[in-house]
């Protein structure tokens, strides 16, 4: 540690990056996919029909269904369909046990017929969304781990900036076909050029779970009354308690109209009804997150469910709430239209690539020292196996998830759970494979298999459903076509990567190898 500030930061960057890099790669890749979770769900449940959006009809249909199926539930949630998610989603919670997380039942309804959609059971894109912040771990451990990883990511980003001595001089520098130098140039390029996104996404992920990981201020300011804090920040959660007397819930549509009038034509995202069969029923109408960049958690209009009386309109956001809402809104990207959504996706891929190239560089630099002996010490072999499993292995798992969706029988009851299990089984098998095969072979074989699986998805789609490219391109179902085409492109990319990896394992001419070994040691 006596070497100097930059060297110390380089040390920190390298070790923090390595230890959390594998986890962060998974978080970034699945998080990036989550930007298109609705489109992924659409591909994975092609039976859900899209209809012209009619909020009044959807709301009426949902209310009728819930009154029939869950009249005595403690809470109802109705999520209205929008341009990306054609499903009318209803959710209800049987009863509220204080302190325990509720038992929720979710159903997707057809907004025209009012019946539950007969679509194959699948988590769809929601799986990637959930995974990227809670992994597959029980509550709350997954979130803690991902938030810790986010803090390490933040440290890695800042130490990376400090370490990169020639950040301005090398701003436009990318020198391919030069071995380790190229990997470092690439790492720097996707890091520095997309830095605003990386800093935003990392810091905002800390802010999103800040109440959980940094509760000290809440306790210091509110003492035992943490409920009071959440009521102040989310006024819509402060609802009238059950009175015990039966009441009749009024139609929700007029309340919806009134709420929209308050927002000068803004869109409604969700409607939540508390204690619908009680005389103290309350209805909270939430504004759609896609309306604005700055997410307003408090933007709700609340009514008494049985009298229709307007109880509360949320106030203008304070500056701190707006700042918090900005972090949330920017991270989620709900407001993004199709073009901007693709840009978010590309930025996410850049972040994923930044982490991936970092992991490759870490190993590559140290492998050079052992290249002559041909035997890798245990620690390096461990890193190599984890690199392969966490990167190409994860991609195989994702492909497996999509293949399972098309191959598992539609009527199979536990198919949703099995899709997820196959994801993890594929990932586990790739880890096993990486342990059994030598480094280069492991990469080449997994990348090749990934290339095959992804490139074949449009074909798989054509063989198993009637919503393949021939149909989706003609009818203008861009989500469906986009999914097939993106998988194809991913397959091509993985194939190219496999080919390059294969070529490098072929012995190079002596001059090139010598050049590769005499790289100038940089402060990294």
């Amino acid at each position, binding site marked *: *540690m006596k070497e100097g500030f930059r060297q110390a930061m380089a040390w920190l960057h390298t070790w923090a990056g390595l230890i959390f890099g594998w986890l962060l790669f998974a978080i970034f890749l699945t998080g990036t996919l989550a930007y298109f979770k609705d489109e992924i769900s659409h591909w994975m449940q092609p039976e859900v029909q899209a209809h012209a959006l009619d909020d009044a009809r959807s709301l009426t249909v949902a209310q009728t269904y819930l009154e029939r199926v869950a009249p005595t539930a403690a809470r109802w949630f109705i999520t209205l369909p929008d341009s990306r998610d054609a499903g009318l989603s209803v959710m209800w919670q049987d009863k509220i046990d204080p302190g325990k997380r509720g038992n929720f039942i979710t159903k997707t309804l057809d907004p025209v017929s009012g019946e539950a959609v007969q679509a194959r059971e699948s988590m769809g894109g929601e799986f990637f969304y959930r995974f990227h912040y809670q992994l597959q771990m029980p509550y709350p451990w997954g979130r803690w781990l991902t938030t810790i990883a986010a803090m390490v990511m933040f440290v890695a980003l800042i130490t990376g900036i400090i370490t990169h001595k020639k950040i301005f001089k090398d701003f436009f520098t990318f020198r391919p076909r030069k071995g380790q130098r190229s990997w470092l140039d690439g790492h720097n390029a996707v890091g520095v050029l997309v830095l605003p996104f990386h800093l935003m996404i990392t810091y905002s992920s800390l802010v999103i779970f800040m109440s959980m990981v940094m509760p000290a201020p809440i306790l210091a300011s509110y003492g035992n009354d943490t409920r009071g804090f959440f009521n*102040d920040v989310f006024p819509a959660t402060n609802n009238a308690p059950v009175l015990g007397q039966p009441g009749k819930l009024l139609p929700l549509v007029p309340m919806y109209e009134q709420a929209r009038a308050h927002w000068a034509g803004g869109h409604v995202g969700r409607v939540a009804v508390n204690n619908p069969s009680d005389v103290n029923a309350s209805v909270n109408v939430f504004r759609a997150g896609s309306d604005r960049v700055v997410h307003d958690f408090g933007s709700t209009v609340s009514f008494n469910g049985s009298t229709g009386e307007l109880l509360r309109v949320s106030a203008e956001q*304070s500056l701190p709430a707006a700042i918090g809402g900005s972090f949330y809104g920017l991270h989620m990207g709900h407001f993004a239209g199709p073009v901007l959504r693709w840009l978010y996706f590309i930025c996410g891929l850049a972040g994923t690539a930044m982490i991936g190239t970092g992991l490759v560089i870490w190993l590559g630099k140290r492998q050079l020292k052992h290249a002559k002996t041909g035997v890798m010490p245990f620690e390096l072999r461990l890193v190599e196996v984890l690199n392969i499993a966490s990167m190409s292995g994860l991609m195989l798992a994702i492909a497996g998830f999509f293949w399972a969706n098309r191959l598992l029988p539609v009527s199979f009851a536990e198919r949703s759970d099995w899709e997820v299990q196959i994801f993890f089984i594929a990932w586990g098998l790739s880890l096993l494979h990486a342990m059994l095969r030598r480094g280069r072979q492991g990469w080449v074989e997994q990348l090749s298999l990934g290339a095959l699986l992804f490139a074949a998805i449009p074909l798989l789609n054509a063989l198993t459903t009637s919503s393949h490219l021939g149909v989706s391109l003609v009818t203008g179902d861009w989500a469906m076509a986009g999914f097939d085409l993106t998988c194809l492109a991913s397959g091509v990319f993985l194939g190219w990567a496999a080919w390059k990896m294969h070529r490098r394992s072929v012995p190079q001419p002596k001059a090139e190898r010598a050049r590769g070994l005499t790289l100038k040691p940089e402060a990294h």
Partner: protein
Amino acid sequence: MKSKTSLPASYRLAVTSRVLAAVVGGYLMASLAAVCLALWMPTSRADAVITGMMSSFVFYLLAVIWCFACRTAWRAWFGVMLPSAAFATLAGVGFWMVRT
């Protein structure tokens, strides 16, 4: 990177100490800084708490950077505990003021 056999135990101990100072000490410092902001900011209670929580991660980052940039592991702890004590004092005063 030195080869495995030549890293002395004292080095490993120092690194471990710095890591603990950064992770645990840093969290403590960040929490106390956040509490200070929450108690001292002239805005509403909820707003002050939100501001405190949002800013805490910057303090955490500074603590982590200090712990690895300073010259010895002792300095790492010192550099994190001293501000923590200062924040704790300020927070204590703020808490007492709110009470009375």
